[in-house]
């Protein structure tokens, strides 16, 4: 039986289709989850996709964290369920306190859609084991509020515990210490501002490539689930 990867749709979510496709492309069974439904329907991992949940009104991710599905996701994440928050999903994970820090308005203030180079910093998470440390990968960003911010103490902790999972090679938005993604202490919860689900096919991935550098995020979790 293939592993089941759930993808949550909040009102205003945009990249759920893409995340479901990514799950399918690596051979998992994609399962659509609805924000009002507190049941996780037996999924083995959850992706919180990008978009503008609840319009991003108030603050990106601030309302989504209170939805019924998030109560279940937060509880399961604390029990070890692999959870990947992409872009708005990362914002929701921070608002939910599953991850520290916050995502604030980009330096330069504009929305940026660009293919950016990342350096993988940690492969000891559920979502990054198929990369190698130091590997440079090309993944798109597209956000207006993607600048990672946290106080120095938190940043030092993240560094010391090896929880920075990827950094921008050329920081596009003023993120603290070039951080593009982080993990929780257990490594099952990962938040990432760039969009690996937009880098999974030669046809639609970054051009000129490499076009499919995002795939290992999804194969990593699949391997862990199969081996578990």
């Amino acid at each position, binding site marked *: 039986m293939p592993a089941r990867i759930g993808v949550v749709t909040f009102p205003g979510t945009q*990249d759920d289709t*893409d995340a479901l496709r990514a799950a399918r492309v690596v051979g998992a069974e994609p399962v659509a989850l609805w924000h009002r439904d507190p049941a996780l329907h037996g999924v083995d991992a959850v992706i919180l996709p990008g978009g503008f949940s609840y319009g991003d009104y108030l603050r990106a991710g601030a309302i989504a964290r209170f939805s019924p599905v998030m109560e279940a996701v937060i509880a399961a994440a604390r029990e070890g369920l692999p959870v990947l928050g992409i872009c708005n999903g990362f914002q929701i994970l921070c608002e939910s306190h599953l991850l520290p820090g916050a995502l604030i308005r980009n330096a330069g203030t504009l*929305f940026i859609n660009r293919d950016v180079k990342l350096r993988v910093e940690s492969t000891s998470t559920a979502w990054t084991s198929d990369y190698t440390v130091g590997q440079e990968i090309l993944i798109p960003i597209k956000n207006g509020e993607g600048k990672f911010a946290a106080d120095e103490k938190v940043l030092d902790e993240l560094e010391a515990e090896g929880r920075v999972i990827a950094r921008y090679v050329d920081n596009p938005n003023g993120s603290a210490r070039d951080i593009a993604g982080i993990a929780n202490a257990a490594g099952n919860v990962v938040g990432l501002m760039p969009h690996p689900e937009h880098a999974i096919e030669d046809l639609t991935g970054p051009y000129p490539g490499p076009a499919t550098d995002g795939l290992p995020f999804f194969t990593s979790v699949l391997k862990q689930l199969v081996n578990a």
Partner: protein
Amino acid sequence: MSENKYQVDTVERATASPETEQPYEALGVKDDEYARIREILGRRPTSSELAMYSVMWSEHCSYKSSKVHLKQFGEKAPEVDFLLVGPGENAGVVDVGGDLAVTFKIESHNHPSYVEPYQGAATGVGGIVRDILTMGARPVAVLDPLRFGPADAADTHRVLPGVVRGIGGYGNSLGLPNIGGEVVFDACYSGNPLVNALSVGVLKKSEIKLAKADGPGNRVVLFGARTGGDGIGGASVLASATFDEDKPSKRPSVQVGDPFMEKVLIECCLEIYAEDLVTGIQDLGAAGLSCATTELAAAGTGGMDVQLDLAPLRDATLVPEEILMSESQERMMAVVTPENLPRFFAICEKWDVIATVIGTVTDTGRLRMTWHGETIVDVDPRTLAHQGPVYERPYHRPSWQDALQADAPSAERLARPKTGDELRETVLTMIASPNLADKTWVLEQYDHRVRGNTVLAHGEDSGMLRVSEDTGAGIALSTDGNGRYTKLDPYTGAQLALAEAYRNVAATGAKPLAVTDCLNFGSPEDPEVMWQFAEACRGLADACLELGTPVTGGNVSFYNQTGSEAIHPTPIVGVLGVIDDVARRTRSAFETEGEILLLVGETRDEFGGSEWAHVAHGHLGGLPPRLDLERERQLAEILIAGSRDGMLSAAHDLSDGGLVQAIAESCLRGGHGARVVLPSELDPFVALFSESAGRAVVAVPRSEEKRFTDMCVFRNVPVARIGVVDGDELDVQDQFAIPLDELREAWTGTFPKLFG
């Protein structure tokens, strides 16, 4: 003040008080039009009816000045078997093979975008997307052709950043990839930018929805956002005479968009469609509730009773005239059978969308509206929707047209670069000029990836989407237009816009199928502008017939002028194409060293309306490039066959800036240089910068050169070997060489310098 309460104007009161003076002129209704309304009704209209007639008979809704010319698009339409829905509905629908259909349309939001750039542009996207949704389709992409005043003008720095942020802010929040469009600057658009928006949607052929209210007893449901006081035009004028002075009176005339509401509304509608729960549907756009109720009723059984006081309001003080004219965004109206209502409401509840039954379909032939029990509207809906005034506006060729055409940009009239150094300098100046420079600063603010089906986007000749993950089938779209060409010769200029979009679609390997157009012109009351409009329509209709690409819908935008100064006539043409397998798409980048560069088509000394004349001399005169539609068709077939048979590695259409601009772009995108040998029979300047139509530059592997060249010869299309992909500079032999880094710096530096 409190004595001066609003008093509702009922049909009964209107009948009893025929002499009451009505402020019809302030609403834009002419004397004879008002007389006609009275004749139709057999009494004076109530103020609500007058409000409805004023908006439904407005130029914007009734096409009263353009209708007599637009009908050519029907009369001269080519006979095709793929057109499922033609002009007149919310958008045209074409069969793209299998069980899939595609609907697409372009619209303008020019004036609101000048007044309030962010909201104007944002709601322009929102409006056209709702048109696509209304046809029963999932909207899958948008494209935005834009025109602004000079790039260095202060007002452009107010308008452009706001427009771009508005398009991004709204489109990105809808989860719609932005896959194409244009950004063009010209002094004629100072004070009157053009903000056009095209949207495209995909649906099953069997699931096309139409805007009609059929079946007496069926319910009329208003759903989506509440109705507010935004976007009211003349209604406030109409009503203010009797208004309570302490109610909010100043309404913004520009609507305010809420993309989150629209995103939710899209998903809600698609779920409702999937369960086949509506018998008719209409979005609320221009003229709001007036338009939706009359068009649904007029196209259906013919009658409708509406209880207007049931409409959910954002502002409880709104009066019927305002509710009828409000253009609040993100609202839809559906006709639903009583049996389907529970499921309909359940889906709306799932998406937290407010839905309210406000009326019932009848067979009375009358649209009746009540306000707290009193009848305020009782009309034949067809008199509002279809029987508006039609004008045969006078038109004549402008007195200055001959002189303009006689002022040709000959070598004697405009100094041309001659030496290699002068040509090199010109290339660098041109590629850095705002119209030709890299637009990344703009395009990075748009999401082109969402939904994961974008195969080609900005920077390519057309945007391309995969529409079937099973078969790889796809569609391509390009929008083009050239106001300078059209000013010089409106007939040919409109045709050149079509030819360029058609060529762009073919260059990516897709077969051009159908057309949508946005006709941006000055005042129709100016006979010279009207002549431009008439000529452009005639030209476009003739060319569509010859190329076999019918116009499926579009939009007319008049009154684009500041004082008596009209913009260049600017028809923007969108062409939709189809491709069997998007994996066979052709990109514009030179990707492989050693491949052969071929110039397909014929180059003549043609600089009338050219980018070079504009940039180097600020000159506009002469005639636009000649157009040979049969040649365009042959070229398109070559480009499509080249893609299908795997002969082409790259193709790029030649247009603004000519051959050297196209080669430079393809070099910079691919990161490879080119060694170019210009055809010996051509003057180097003409070879590099002429804007002759019907041309493309292609890169082919050496092994395919003969097969490709033979195909061109067989079709009688000139083809010449002009070089090879090689090195890291653009090397035009015997003339000049420019390192790619230097070229890239010139190309990419302009926008960040201007707007960053």
